């Protein structure tokens, strides 16, 4: 399979990327590593007329300690996240989860910004940034804008980014509560999670339990009311609408969410 025809434009600066996107409007898509977008284009589920390749902009690939936050550039690959010693000490949840995405080849190319802007509810990192209470920094024709992770994901493959806006940085507060865990269940290593769970302290987020990544609010309420991991995990499927597909039906996903949340909370406590 090859994608439908499109016109490829390589941006050599962020300004050039924004100009190209502004010029072509809805017909243009940004291309980072391409590991979310290209598979969709091969299936004709995405048919952009213009691809604006931002993959050669080195200024967007970094992980740094910045004024009490950890700042991660949008083009940082899963591979670099997984191997970062700064993340290993400050945000081990992010480093660990990035190392569980896909397989080594995918991790060499796929980027954090690409994954988040793509907003696949079955992807790992969207739930991780919810659990870490990150802020997403976007740049567009109107300038810079900060978007809280909780407001970023709007629906299936849909985010708060406006046409022509480029996600440039993800900012993470240093977690107050040390315990963390990332659990996912897949049939094969390279598959998307049937269900996944990211926990940082008392924040719990779910992968693939609805149209977008979700906080497990029932679990969080139970935890704040003093419930233990097992009792809190019983609320894992509350307020979710998990998909029914070839891998699992909704009831199985609800069961899996309760099992994985219990494991995640127990592991998180053991690390706190």
């Amino acid at each position, binding site marked *: *399979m*090859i*994608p*439908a*025809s*499109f*016109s*490829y434009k*390589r941006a050599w600066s962020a300004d050039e990327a924004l100009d190209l996107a502004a010029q072509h409007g809805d017909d243009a898509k940004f*291309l980072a590593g*391409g*590991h979310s977008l*290209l*598979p969709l284009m*091969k299936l004709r589920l995405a048919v952009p007329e213009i*691809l604006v*390749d931002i*993959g050669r902009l080195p200024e967007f690939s970094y992980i740094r300690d910045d004024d009490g936050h950890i700042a991660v550039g949008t083009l940082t690959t899963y*591979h670099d996240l997984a191997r970062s010693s700064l993340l290993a000490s400050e945000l081990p949840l992010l480093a660990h989860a990035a190392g569980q995405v*896909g*397989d*080594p*080849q*995918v991790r*060499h*190319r796929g980027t954090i910004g690409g994954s988040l802007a793509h907003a696949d509810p079955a992807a790992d990192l969207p739930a991780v940034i919810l659990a870490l209470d990150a802020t997403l920094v976007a740049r567009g024709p109107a300038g810079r804008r900060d978007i809280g992770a909780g407001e970023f994901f709007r629906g299936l493959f849909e985010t708060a980014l406006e046409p022509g806006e480029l996600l440039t940085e993800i900012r993470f507060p240093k977690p107050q509560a040390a315990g963390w865990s990332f659990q996912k269940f897949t049939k094969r*290593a*390279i598959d998307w999670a049937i269900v996944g769970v990211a926990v940082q302290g008392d924040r719990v987020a779910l992968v693939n339990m609805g149209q977008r990544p979700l906080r497990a609010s029932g679990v969080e309420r139970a935890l704040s009311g003093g419930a233990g991991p097992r009792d809190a995990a019983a609320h894992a499927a509350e307020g979710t609408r998990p998909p029914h597909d070839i891998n699992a039906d909704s009831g199985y996903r609800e069961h899996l969410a309760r099992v994985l949340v219990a494991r995640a909370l127990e592991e998180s406590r053991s690390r706190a």
Partner: protein
Amino acid sequence: MKLTVMVNGRQVAAEVEDRTLLVHFVRDVAGLTATNIGCDTSSCGACTVLLDGQSVKSCTVLAAQADGCEVVTVEGLAGPDGELHPMQSAFHAEHGLQCGFCTPGMVMAAVSLLRENPAPTEEQVRSGLEGNLCRCTGYHNIVRAVLAAAEAGAEVTR
């Protein structure tokens, strides 16, 4: 679009459609057909090549994304006199293949793995090859081959 890719040390320049995938560039333009197209959905790893030293699935990379970069395929591993790369020798010695379809991708994934981790444990080899499927179920010998190559110091050569 016009692009130039260094493939196995040889500069390959061509005018191609913007939508050309790297695997088609390697096979049809550079004429190197050892790299196989298996699933064509970035699952099986048969099309794995090195792009600037790192393993990638060339069915999920545009040729345009490799413009100006360096690509190594399994044909680029052996020495100029035909002497096998230590990873190839290890696959041969340990019978790390049956039908051979996954082998070019498997070897390239293994070369990339040892560059990042020259002395992996068996478990690290198994997880490091997660992105490559072998339908002959030849994994045990493949893992043995990679461990043998690591032992022989495969990462330091070429």
